[in-house]
């Protein structure tokens, strides 16, 4: 019964999407208002069907209806309620159903919020989104059917979700964030397709597109960060990023998404880079599909892989179809997007943006090549190889350092082909800040070249970011205007937001550089009463106990922490043993301070009551997360309409500023 209801909703979604897509394209080609209305209705039907299907699945999960195969696969009577709710996305079929729900949300949001001033593109946009929706509902209805009835006999209890996913609440929010990022990239993609089909790309396209791109990029940022945090809090190896293939897969669209956001700025200011922005958006979308494929096909060895399933070839087919459509569409229509003439120099704001795009795209290709090279090696040489952390660090660190440098240099430079002397002076002014950064690093005992370089670049970037970010306030003060400094900043919240994001990036960069260089660790076998020492800390093992919980057994060690003769509290690293898994899963215990983290992992508990304890002291880890939070806040600021937009939103407003032929700071 439940199975049939769920399958019914999926079928409804499939029908709405596969009719809506061609319908929308026809409506778009004929510029039919009635056609657009119907396309919007079908889009809303699709969204409702997806919501219905997910609702049915949640109902089945919560009522432990093991006649539904997905529930029999991930459900368990002993699993706590909140974990049962999250188990919707804990396994392959459910995660694709959840994917459909998010796509539905985005489609309905596009259908509702894009009504005004975007009719030119909307039919095409919705048609493309529904096309993607048709593929996903097809997947759910065929090879990844979570609603398939369980073959009899129906079990009375299930195994419960993967223990790793049960171990921490972050698992509840990390995947949805990532999906919101991945799926959200479909909207700018659909808008780019619409722009190509229309053959025009004006301000009415660019503004909303940037916003629709900003939202998923921000979700992706948060999702990647939460993944790192989860890995740090749960996996117990003391790190947050392992360059695992699936981590890389989420990183790829993030890189090109950010590149597209930056090239969009140039397009907005100078009317150039139109075709390039569209290409970047399309690459970003293809990379999200590639990432999903890598996660779900099992072709790469990864901690995140779902089990091997027939879904892989189908997904690869979809990826090939999308890639072919993108390449053909681009080659047919790209010449319709004509950039304005402009004068560009290397040492100018535009030049910095070009280099920024160059570095982001190079970084993306580097990570892509490293990620799929093991498959190449195996196919051609018949040998399994690994491309891992040392390689990626070696390759990516210089590129990231370059980006950090550009983040300081770019905003300091004036737009356009202005006087080179002016540009030189703009670059000399922040140099003392770079010196301060370098001196601070030396003072704290840094001697390794990468850290010193990053510190100097960070000082430079920080000065420029603050200088540029606060420029409206200074301008206001000079003019003795009536509004306060905050109001002055909020005249152009997107500008402020951009510099807030940059601030977050600098914080995260520095924190990553320092934390990965100055990590120290110690490991020992301790009997009760014995002490392990590390970096000024004394950790005394008091004893271990076995805690019984309904769905797991936990060995919990009590470790008293003190430094400088003062007690710093008690930490409880533990090892969880799930009934259906032999290898225990550790839960580290972390003491976080502004300066560093003390990270304790329980390696093992032996019969005689002694434990293996590993302690890691890592500086500045907390600032990685703080930096990302600053980035997300900055992005939120960017989404607030600017004063100009607020005026434009008012009735009978004049269209927005056309790209100005000669630049000049804002």
């Amino acid at each position, binding site marked *: 019964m439940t199975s049939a209801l769920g399958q019914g909703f999926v079928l409804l979604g499939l029908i709405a999407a596969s009719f809506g897509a061609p319908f929308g394209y026809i409506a778009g080609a004929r510029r039919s208002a009635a056609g657009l209305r119907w396309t919007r209705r079908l889009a809303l039907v699709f969204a409702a069907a997806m919501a219905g299907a997910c609702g049915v699945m949640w109902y089945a999960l919560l009522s432990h209806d093991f006649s539904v195969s997905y529930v029999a696969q991930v459900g368990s009577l002993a699993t706590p309620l909140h974990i049962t709710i999250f188990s919707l996305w804990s396994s392959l079929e459910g995660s694709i159903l959840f994917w459909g729900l998010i796509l539905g949300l985005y489609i309905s949001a596009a259908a509702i919020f894009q009504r005004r001033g975007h009719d030119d593109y909307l039919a095409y946009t919705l048609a493309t989104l529904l096309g993607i929706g048709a593929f996903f509902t097809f997947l759910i209805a065929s090879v990844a059917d979570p609603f398939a009835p369980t073959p009899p006999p129906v079990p009375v209890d299930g195994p419960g979700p993967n223990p790793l996913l049960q171990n921490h609440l972050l698992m509840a929010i990390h995947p949805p964030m990532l999906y919101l990022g991945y799926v959200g990239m479909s909207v700018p993609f659909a808008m780019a397709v619409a722009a190509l089909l229309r053959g025009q790309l004006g301000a009415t396209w660019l503004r909303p597109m940037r916003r629709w791109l900003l939202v998923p990029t921000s979700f992706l940022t948060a999702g990647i960060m939460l993944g790192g945090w989860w890995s740090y809090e749960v996996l117990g190896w003391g790190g947050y990023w392992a360059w695992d293939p699936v981590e890389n897969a989420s990183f790829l669209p993030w890189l090109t998404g950010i590149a597209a956001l930056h090239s969009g700025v140039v397009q907005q200011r100078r009317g150039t880079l139109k075709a390039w922005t569209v290409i970047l958006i399309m690459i970003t979308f293809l990379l999200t599909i590639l990432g999903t494929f890598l996660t779900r096909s099992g072709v790469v060895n990864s901690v995140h892989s779902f089990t091997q399933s027939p879904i892989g070839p189908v997904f690869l087919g979809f990826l090939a179809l999308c890639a072919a459509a993108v390449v053909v569409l681009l080659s047919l229509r790209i010449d319709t997007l004509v950039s304005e*003439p402009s004068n*560009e120099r290397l040492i100018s704001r535009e030049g910095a943006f070009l280099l920024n795009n160059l570095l982001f795209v190079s970084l993306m290709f580097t990570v892509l090549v490293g990620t799929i*090279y093991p498959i190449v090696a195996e196919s051609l040489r018949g040998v399994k190889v690994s491309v891992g952390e*040392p390689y990626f660090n070696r390759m990516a660190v210089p590129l990231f350092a370059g980006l950090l440098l550009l983040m300081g240099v770019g905003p300091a430079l004036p737009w356009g082909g202005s006087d080179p002397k002016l540009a030189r002076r703009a670059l000399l002014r922040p140099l003392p800040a770079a010196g301060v950064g370098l001196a601070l690093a030396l003072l704290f005992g840094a001697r390794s070249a990468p850290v010193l370089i990053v510190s100097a670049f960070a000082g430079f970037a920080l000065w420029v970011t603050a200088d540029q970010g606060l420029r409206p306030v200074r301008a206001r003060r000079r003019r003795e205007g009536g509004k306060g400094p905050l109001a002055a900043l909020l005249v152009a919240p997107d500008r402020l937001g951009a510099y807030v994001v940059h601030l977050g990036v600098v914080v995260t960069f520095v924190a990553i550089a320092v934390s990965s260089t100055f990590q120290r660790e110690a490991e020992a076998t301790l009997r009760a009463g014995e002490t392990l020492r590390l970096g000024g800390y004394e950790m005394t093992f008091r004893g271990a106990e076995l805690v019984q919980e309904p769905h797991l057994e936990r060995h919990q060690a009590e470790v008293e922490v003190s430094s400088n003769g003062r007690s710093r509290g008690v930490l409880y690293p533990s090892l969880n043993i799930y009934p259906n898994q032999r290898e225990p899963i550790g839960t580290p215990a972390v003491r976080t301070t502004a300066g560093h983290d003390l990270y304790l992992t329980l390696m093992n508990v032996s019969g005689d009551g002694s434990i293996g304890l590993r302690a890691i002291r890592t500086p500045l880890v907390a600032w990685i997360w703080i930096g990302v939070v600053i980035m997300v806040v900055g992005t939120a600021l960017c989404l607030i309409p600017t004063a100009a937009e607020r005026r434009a939103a008012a009735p009978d407003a004049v269209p927005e500023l056309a790209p100005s032929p000669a630049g000049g700071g804002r």
Partner: protein
Amino acid sequence: MRRATDIPAAAFLLFLAALPLPTAARAQSQDAGPDVDLPAAEGEYRPGLGVEASRELGDPQGEPLSGEELDRAVSLVAADIRCPKCQALSIADSGASSAQAMRAEARSLLASGYTRDQVVRYFEQRYGEFVLLEPRARGLNLIVWTAPAAIVLVGGLLVARRLRQRRRGGEEALAAYLEQVEQETAT
């Protein structure tokens, strides 16, 4: 030689008879207290037992290390070796028991004078190229080593070409604009 074609059948029958075995074994392992086992502490081997690494590796080509120098050498080697049991983690990062054993092995080899290169080669000979987190720069692997530089280079050339064209284009556009203004003011 004895013919043994009936083995699969016999084995299958035995397998059927042994089906209750897993449950029995599981029950045992739960009775036996905490089944979280402790690997032997680093460096404690009974003399004369185990593997003689020297026979596999040849003579040590470096100086025996100890103390902090040894710690540093161990973590350098460990960071480059992939933990065979886990995914994408090095044996330096992984807490898996086999990773701990491999760290201990690296430590004992380095302590007896084997060089970093010898130790890495030892692991590579045993587990295959798969355990090297950084592929060796030879043969097909050169793709991975040259690609990033090649991409930056090609991209850089494209950017340079664009800047040159734009400079010219900008000047032409400006000239055309001035000409137009001149014509309009003339009439």
